[in-house]
């Protein structure tokens, strides 16, 4: 409207102060969560218990999909039956086909039975199918289905799908001395409300039970001589942001524990454990047990009293090279291992047992003071931004980002920002006017003194203009510690951050 009279646009500048980040990193947040503890002298102790690797053991016992077919024909040329008469009642035994595994008992964690019943006579049949020795809460697996009549050529069909979760299967057969066996029982009666029927020896009564997708959480028997081996690469994303510098760790004392929660004897070997850092420097973890076979004892106890066996690998000042390994600050780890179950065959006499809580894995237990020095340890991270500074209404003219810090960590940092374009090319560096200094120990030697500092990142008009084409911001922080050795961290360690923007905006109408 009024704009038609204009030679120029209406413009004005305004000054805005807006908080961007307000956060505190407190060492106390990590105390009492099985990571850190506070010593009597207020120093921090690393007391970590971590489960590093857990192998899925349900794959040890794999029950193949199995179909059990049971059929019946009378032995006479013909037979007339009154309503409600039972004329079939028999048990059959079927064998699961495992390769090397010998099971006497198993409990189903998941899986189903798909049942099909065929009735060849013209009137309804009452079919009862049960699986002797398949029990849940003391009740045998059994069901009754009334199947409509048919003919020998086109029998009446009944279909059922039953969930087997929680059923325990006794696989020792009718004698109780065998293994890998499953029994089934079929009972057929004539319709109690129907007419009398006449059977011939051409009438075939049939049931088919198909077990599908059975997984177990309990199994007993002999689990076979099984070998697992793998070489795997683990990327630690957070550490991949380190691009330079070094750290110094001291007084390391930690254990890697191989934990066996199944009652099976095994042997294992760690043949490769390497750390690869930002500079592609490789440090292999060494230990007297690495590169040779070690025995893994079976777990003890049963069910609630199950106690996994543990094989500890201690790393301290005299054993292994864990300090060098950690100081490599690797972001990529290559681990090679092999585990063999029952290396000497069925030495348990069929008493290998897998419990629901059984697991095979590697745990970490650490207990040592947090003494970490840093020398120009450089972290670099990139954040995508979509800063629309080409808006016709409002755009940033200039300003600054102000970072107010209060630091009681014995680490300081210099921070740089870099604007990147869509091809990740640097288009502008924004340096800070100050730095975060490492805190100094107080006179009592039980805490670091807080240091308040203010860093200013100047956004000049050139940088503001470049915001329109900036697709990401790269933050580079270079950390150095108060001292490189014996650099203690105390319980009051905290870094409080308040990042605010002070921007002059130009508005245009």
């Amino acid at each position, binding site marked *: 409207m009024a704009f038609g009279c204009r030679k120029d646009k*209406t*413009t004005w500048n305004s000054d805005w102060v807006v*908080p961007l980040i307000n*956060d505190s990193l407190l060492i106390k947040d990590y105390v009492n969560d099985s990571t850190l503890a506070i010593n009597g002298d207020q120093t921090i102790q690393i007391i970590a218990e971590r489960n590093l690797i857990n192998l899925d053991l349900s794959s040890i016992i794999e029950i193949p999909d199995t179909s059990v077919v049971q059929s019946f024909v009378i032995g006479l040329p013909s037979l007339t039956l009154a309503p409600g008469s039972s004329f079939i009642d028999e048990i059959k035994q079927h064998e699961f086909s495992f390769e090397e595994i010998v099971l006497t008992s198993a409990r189903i964690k998941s899986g189903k039975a798909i049942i099909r019943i065929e009735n060849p006579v013209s009137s309804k049949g009452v079919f009862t199918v049960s699986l002797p020795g398949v029990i849940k809460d003391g009740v045998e697996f059994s069901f009754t289905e009334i199947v409509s009549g048919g003919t020998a050529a086109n029998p009446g069909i009944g279909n059922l799908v039953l969930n087997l979760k929680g059923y325990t299967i006794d696989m020792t057969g009718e004698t109780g001395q065998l293994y890998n066996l499953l029994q089934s029982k079929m009972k057929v009666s004539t319709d109690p409300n129907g007419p009398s029927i006449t059977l011939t020896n051409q009438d075939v009564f049939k049931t088919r039970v198909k077990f599908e997708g059975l997984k177990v959480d309990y199994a007993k028997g002999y689990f076979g001589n099984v070998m697992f081996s793998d070489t795997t690469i683990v990327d630690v994303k957070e550490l991949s942001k380190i691009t330079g510098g070094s750290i110094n760790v001291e007084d390391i004392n930690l254990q890697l524990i191989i934990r066996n929660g199944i009652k099976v004897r095994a042997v294992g070997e760690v043949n490769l454990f390497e750390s690869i850092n930002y500079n592609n420097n490789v440090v292999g973890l060494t230990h007297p047990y690495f590169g040779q076979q070690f025995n893994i004892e079976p777990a003890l106890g049963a069910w609630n009293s199950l106690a996994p066996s543990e094989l500890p690998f201690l790393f301290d000042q005299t054993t292994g090279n864990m300090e060098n390994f950690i100081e490599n600050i690797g972001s990529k780890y290559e681990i090679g291992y092999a585990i063999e179950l029952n290396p000497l065959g069925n030495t348990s006499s069929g008493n290998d047992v897998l419990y629901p809580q059984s697991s095979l894995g590697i745990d970490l237990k650490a207990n040592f003071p947090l003494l970490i020095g840093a020398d120009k340890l450089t972290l670099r991270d990139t954040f995508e931004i979509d800063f629309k500074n080409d808006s016709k209404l409002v755009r940033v003219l200039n300003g600054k980002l102000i970072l107010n810090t209060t630091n009681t960590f014995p680490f300081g940092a210099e921070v740089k920002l870099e604007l990147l374009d869509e091809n990740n090319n640097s288009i502008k560096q924004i340096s800070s006017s100050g730095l975060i200094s490492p805190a100094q120990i107080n006179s009592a030697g039980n805490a670091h003194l807080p240091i308040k500092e203010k860093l200013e990142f100047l956004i000049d008009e050139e940088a503001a203009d470049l915001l329109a084409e900036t697709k990401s911001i790269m933050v580079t922080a270079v950390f150095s510690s108060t001292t490189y050795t014996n650099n203690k961290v105390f319980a009051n360690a905290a870094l409080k951050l308040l990042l605010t923007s002070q921007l002059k905006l130009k508005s245009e109408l």
Partner: protein
Amino acid sequence: MILKKINLIFFGILFAIGNNVNGQELLPVMYDSTLANRQIIMNGSFFQHGSSLKNDFSRKFIFGGEISDELSQRTYESQKKYNRIGGGAKFRIAYKSANQIFKSKPNWSWMIDLANEVHGTADYSGDLLGLAFLGNASFLGESVNFSNSSAQYVQYLSIGGGIHNRKNKNFISLNAILPQNFFMLSVNKGNVSFTEDGANIDLILQGEILEAAADPYFKGLGAAVNFDFNIPFGNSESFSGVMKVTGRNLGFYQLHNAKLQEIDNSISYSGFQLADFANDSQMTTLKDTLGVRESTTSPMRLLPGFIQVGKVATADSKHKLQSTFGVRMYTNYFYKPMIYLGVHYQPLTSFSLGSQISYGGYGGFRLGLYANYTAKNIMIGIGTEDILGALLKSQYGHSGLIRLAWKF
């Protein structure tokens, strides 16, 4: 085809003028009781008037240019706790026929009436203006209250027809209203506080925004009446004259599928936490943070019409100096009833001029000035309701009026 082209050109001109002239239709029109021929009458006007915004500031929006920090500061300091401003522009063209349409009423004939109008109003706190033009750096450690602030803007075409009396110049026309732009902001509760170090912002906001749907060319449909009724009073021995009752755009329109955004929230913001920047953390949008609820609605709205009742000068008066006075009321609550009082001087039959002082409307006192020239077939009038506003930066508004009439 030719008619279609003419229509397109006409609407094009309407649109162009409507978007380049800012307006109101109150150039004093002398009452003339002579029998009129066919006429084409064009009115163009613009006005802007506020309670607290001085012209040195508002002219930056009319003519462009940079608002200096010093001007922003000075303008903020001159605001009252609550202020109002309004403005509008109009281009209207009417054709009045001379053909008799009623057998028993020889002076009545038909007319058509087309216009493009825009009207905007706002009711705002002084702090809100300060915040917008100075930024929050000037309000650290303070609160900015903008409760009961509101703004509305509508632009529409009107097209219609009616009947007019060639003798006493009464007319009434019924117009279809075709809104093309609409925006309304209403804040019932609004307050934003900033801590001294700028580390925390507390916002309380309860309000709504209603805007026309983006797609259709016409955002809705409505109807309105325009009329003039001239009522002679008194006699030649006593105080006499003609009272004119003017009504423009008295009616409603309905917006189709307008977008309604409602907010009722209070937020305390002190910056993000570092965990918010983690890759798997979803940053919320400003709308989500504010809890904006969006819906569509088809509300009925009152047109920004007005009624003016006042004594007008008469062309056939035996006095060279005549008085004019009256009151004008807009159909919106921002506009306070405006009263005016003026003199009209007609030294020659073909030329007259006048002046009036007014109070009310969107602001306070204004001094108006106008001149009319009448020849055989044409009449030209120009004026302003705010002559001081045209001259002085310290005034609070602008106004311009033009009226052309061609008799044939």
